[in-house]
């Protein structure tokens, strides 16, 4: 009995933990939003009828998309250079990307408070070189949140993509050169298409991470730039409106899972190495 099901027994504790404390509670959160109030979808009707909340959802999408696009571009180009760098330099560059990644979200967001604040480094610098007479209000804008988020996610993108680029065999690049393709053509016709699945994976990581973030928008956006994460916290812990918080949670879960499923499918279809 035990012997035949040994695999099950070994996997049981971890499976139980996930089912009991993740699946059931999250299902409970999602379930609590249905059949609440008038009509089965009342909390959602409520959410989408509020101009403010629509604005929050929209802003969160904007910030996440901008963060994804910028860190994708910076990350890919940087990763390309890193992957082609001589070995010693490469390990230094990788360490320099890993270090911020392992430093906490709060610490890294906090750094931008010092930089972008009214008496911050950037304003002092601009005042000193005479670009402006008045400090700019850079904090608590959509821009400040995006800058900090890009800062947060670019290292992740670089590391993901260095891995992807290093998996492209050198032989393919040499084959391309031997057939007469210049380095530019090789990049466009061989390296980039082969990196697309990796780019999609990186983009999904960054998008879902930004979409559900809390600390960075809280520190750099505050109440002025409320996003889904901060709104959810406010609903749950300030207004004690748990149905509203659960509704926001459900929207986050649905969007996250939909994007992950959709994009991993797209990435799989575009991945020629898999077939």
């Amino acid at each position, binding site marked *: 009995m035990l012997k035949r099901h040994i695999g099950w027994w070994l996997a049981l504790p971890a499976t139980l933990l996930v089912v009991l404390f993740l699946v059931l509670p999250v299902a409970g959160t999602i379930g609590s939003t249905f059949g609440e109030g008038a009509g089965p979808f009342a909390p959602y009707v409520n959410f989408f009828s509020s101009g403010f909340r629509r604005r929050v959802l929209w802003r969160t999408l904007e910030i996440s998309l901008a963060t994804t696009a910028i860190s994708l571009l910076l990350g890919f180009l940087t990763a390309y250079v890193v992957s082609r760098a001589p070995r010693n330099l490469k390990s230094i560059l990788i360490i320099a990307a890993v270090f911020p990644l392992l430093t906490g979200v709060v610490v890294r967001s906090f750094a931008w408070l010092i930089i972008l604040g009214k008496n911050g480094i950037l304003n002092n610098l601009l005042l000193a070189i005479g670009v402006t007479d008045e400090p700019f209000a850079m904090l608590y804008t959509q821009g400040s949140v995006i800058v900090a988020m890009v800062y947060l996610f670019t290292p992740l993108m670089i590391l993901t993509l260095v891995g992807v680029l290093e998996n492209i065999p050198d032989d*393919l690049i*040499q084959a*391309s*050169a*031997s*057939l*007469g393709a210049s380095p530019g053509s090789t990049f466009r*016709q061989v390296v980039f298409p082969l990196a697309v699945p990796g780019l999609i994976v990186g983009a999904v990581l960054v998008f879902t991470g930004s979409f559900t973030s809390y600390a960075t928008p809280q520190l750099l956006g505050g109440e002025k730039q409320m996003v889904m994460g901060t709104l959810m916290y406010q609903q749950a812990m300030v207004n004690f409106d748990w149905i509203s918080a659960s509704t926001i949670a459900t929207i986050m879960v649905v969007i996250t899972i939909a994007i992950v499923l959709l994009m991993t499918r797209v990435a799989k279809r575009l991945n020629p*190495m898999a077939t």
Partner: protein
Amino acid sequence: MTQPLSVRNVTAHYGTTKVLEDLSLDVAEGELVSLLGASGCGKTTTLRLIAGFLEPTSGTITLGGRDLTRLPAYKRDIGLVFQNYALFPHLTVLENVAFGLKQRGIAGPEREKRARAMLERVGLAPLADRLPGALSGGQKQRVALARALVIEPPLLMFDEPLSNLDAKLRIDMRVEIRQLQRANRTTAVYVTHDQEEAFSISDRVAIMNAGRIMQFDTPETLYQRPANSFVARFVGFENLIPMKVVARDGANVTAETAGGARLAMSGERFGEIPDGFIFASRADGLRVVPGTGEGIPATTGLRTYLGRAYQYQCDTAAGPIVANGALSEPLEPGSTATLVPVPDQCCVLKAE
């Protein structure tokens, strides 16, 4: 279209290690030359230098009089077939073959026409729209070949192209490669560690060791007249016996082994024989004859059955020797025998 290749006094380093030393190699128009040697002998390095993926420390490489030495790889116009095929996994078979034509600015319809024609020649026309991942090893190899041939390069190079295929396919493919190369009369350089493959496919073979060419000749000459003991061992001369000339009669000599066994050697067969030399033979080149007589006295040891003969591990005063004996007279271990040279199967090498 075909052009002669000339590699002149090339030295190359990986970091500080010297991997090629003063290497020169000439490949005539339309000739197929193999670089043969164990891994680390510098054959692949030579190929990469010619292809432009490595820069030589000194020396020059010219193709049809055009100096390639400092030219980037993508401007060299050399068709390259890789060991693991290096097909672009995101492009179809047709697109793979058309890739080089596209880089040469050949318009779409013409490009497709030429690529399809080339696929026809290698027998893969029906698979034109597949992705490489869906092909077998042999099919991939054909695509790689078509891709390199379609650009009609003045020089074609192969880097161990058959090492990932099974034995039967390997033989079919090497015939096919030879036929295509012959038909186009393309100059070709072929890198392999497989002696049979190199000898069967090449006009000439360069046997390499430690970054140098040990001998560069036709397969027949290499097989029968190795120039030195390295090549002799490489082509299967098991017995390398140091000898000293003790008497001369015109061109003919009598020579003696370390243990005092004497052999008469004909100048007609072996040419001019120096005072000290190495007598080289395969197991076939020494016949095991029971009893004592003219030749090298030996005691037979382990006997193995080869089908056409018995092979004996023999003990002699000159050291252990491998030799073959007739099937009609199997000898038990410990028998007294004489090893008689078969002059056609032996050769004389300079002592080192």
